[in-house]
């Protein structure tokens, strides 16, 4: 029972991290109609900068601040240099240019920090365990991830539904030309949204640092999962991204933990040992295929945001 609760919590924690990635992606797509494969690179930049600053100064919060500002700067730079000319272009052109960016960033990271993976430890003030439910201790760091993720989700919701900036973002998503005609600087708005997405990706990267390895190319696999999330949730919908991220996280974690023992009941230990892991890693893609088969537009087809 303790094990089961732990696995579900792991799933929620992973899902919350995916949400941070997916929220940026879906926002950028919903508003600017841009597919950004380099979103994973921003995640990687965040993780690297945080790991480097953290090990140099010993302060996790300083590393976090540095990572966020670095990612925002990089994000704004690539938005101005590369993406501004791509908004009007075909999706294919965007996919290719951002693929070029991935190659570039992966290699730059290798030049700056070498090709061996960096190690990032859990910050001291979050190293213990907390008892969420009586009798079930859970690592404090993961609890913090869940808390931060949920807080960010709430903040994003308030920002988009309640503030003036959020109103402009929604207006930009539904009719950009009209918004421009009303005297709003749409270019600046785009840069702002892009910077926000970059910060979210970097935050996910920083939080992932102590859990996964910090290495070149670490953004790619997360990027694919974030795509799965926004396809399931409905592209452009933040609410959809939130629901789908938690769904994917929990399905993935519980699948990896329980599919093998579950299969053992039916097909014997050795066969289960063979198929269990393979099937577990396919599970979320099967989930995606099933959702798309029923609802090709995802769970929450966006109307605005």
């Amino acid at each position, binding site marked *: 029972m303790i094990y089961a609760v732990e696995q579900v919590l792991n799933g929620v924690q992973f899902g919350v991290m995916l949400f941070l990635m997916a929220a940026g992606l879906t926002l950028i*797509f919903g508003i600017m109609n841009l*597919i950004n494969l380099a979103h994973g690179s921003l995640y990687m930049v965040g993780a690297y900068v945080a790991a480097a600053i953290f090990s140099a100064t010993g302060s996790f919060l300083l590393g976090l601040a540095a990572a966020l500002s670095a990612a925002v700067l990089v994000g704004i730079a690539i938005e101005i240099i*590369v993406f501004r*000319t*791509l908004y009007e272009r075909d*999706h*294919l*052109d965007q*996919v*290719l*240019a951002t*693929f*070029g*960016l*991935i*190659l*570039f*960033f*992966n*290699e*730059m990271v*290798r*030049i700056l920090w070498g090709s061996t993976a960096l190690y990032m430890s859990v910050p001291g003030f979050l190293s213990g365990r907390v008892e969420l439910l009586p009798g079930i201790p859970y690592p404090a760091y993961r609890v913090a991830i869940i808390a931060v993720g949920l807080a960010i989700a709430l903040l994003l919701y308030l920002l988009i539904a309640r503030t003036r900036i959020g109103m402009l973002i929604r207006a930009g998503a539904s009719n950009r030309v009209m918004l421009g005609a009303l005297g709003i600087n749409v270019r600046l708005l785009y840069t702002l949204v892009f910077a926000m997405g970059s910060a979210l990706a970097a935050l996910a990267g920083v939080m992932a640092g102590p859990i996964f390895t910090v290495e070149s190319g670490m953004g*790619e*696999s997360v990027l*694919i999962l974030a*795509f*799965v999330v*926004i*396809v399931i949730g409905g*592209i452009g919908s933040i609410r959809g991204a939130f629901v789908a991220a938690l769904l994917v996280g929990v399905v993935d974690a519980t699948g990896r933990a329980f599919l093998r023992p579950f299969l053992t009941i039916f097909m014997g230990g050795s066969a289960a040992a*063979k198929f269990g*892991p*393979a099937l577990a*890693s*396919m599970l979320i*893609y099967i989930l*995606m*295929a099933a959702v*798309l*088969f029923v609802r*090709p*537009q*995802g769970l929450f087809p966006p109307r605005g945001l």
Partner: protein
Amino acid sequence: MSGRYVAICVALAALALVPAVATVADAPFYTGLFARIMVFAIAAVSLDLILGYGGLVSFGHAALAALVIGFVSLRTSGVYFIMITLAFGQMVYFVAIGLNEYGGDDGLNIARHSDFGAALNLDRPVVFYYFAYGLLLLFLFLGNRIVQSRFGMLLQGVKSNERRMIALGFPTFRYKLTAFVMAGAVCGIAGALFANLTLFVSPSIMHWTRSGEIMMMVILGGLGSLVGPVFGAAAYLILESVLSRLTEHWQAVLGPILILVVLFSKTGLYGIFALPRRRSG
């Protein structure tokens, strides 16, 4: 028979001389490089068939379970299609890693080259080279016939306006699925050749960045022209080979080059070097 057509024929014919020149110049390395180029050219041509003519951006191309994947992914369109093929490509990658019997993520060593009897011994680089060359010519010819056929016209119609094609009464889903499966099969042949070339298969050739590379070749060469991808594959692999000898960090140079090509050229190398395309065939 325009000048462009003649130039392409000359370029393709020149490929036949590569092994001979390489032997004379005592640089057998180039036979290998050009054999690689042709293997990837075949994959790129097959991708171009659905991408340049059918308008379907497929990232799962290196992973070829085309029928089932196509069936699910083609229910969606546009951006969804891009992301889904990406995801399915990754799924096949994970399955390949998971299956330990076929080597898991260590890959699978192949003891020897495919054997088609004494007449066709792929062990010898030169024989392999001409085998790949022949296949490439065959697929270019077939591709040309397909593009000009009713089926090819339909695909191009779907690309420019699918709704209109549906209104005209064509079952576009079936046509798209057929094109998807066909392209997948040809790419599978390229995959088999690749395995023969390196004698080693690992799931890394199915990683989505590999599909991305093939797509790069297509765009670099020029979309919607059958020989474009061949130029693209040549340019990409030669660039890779030259840059990787200059610096260990060649990807840091290649990335920006690709971005520049996307930003400043809409037609790729084919559009730069060939004459403007007229619709006379």
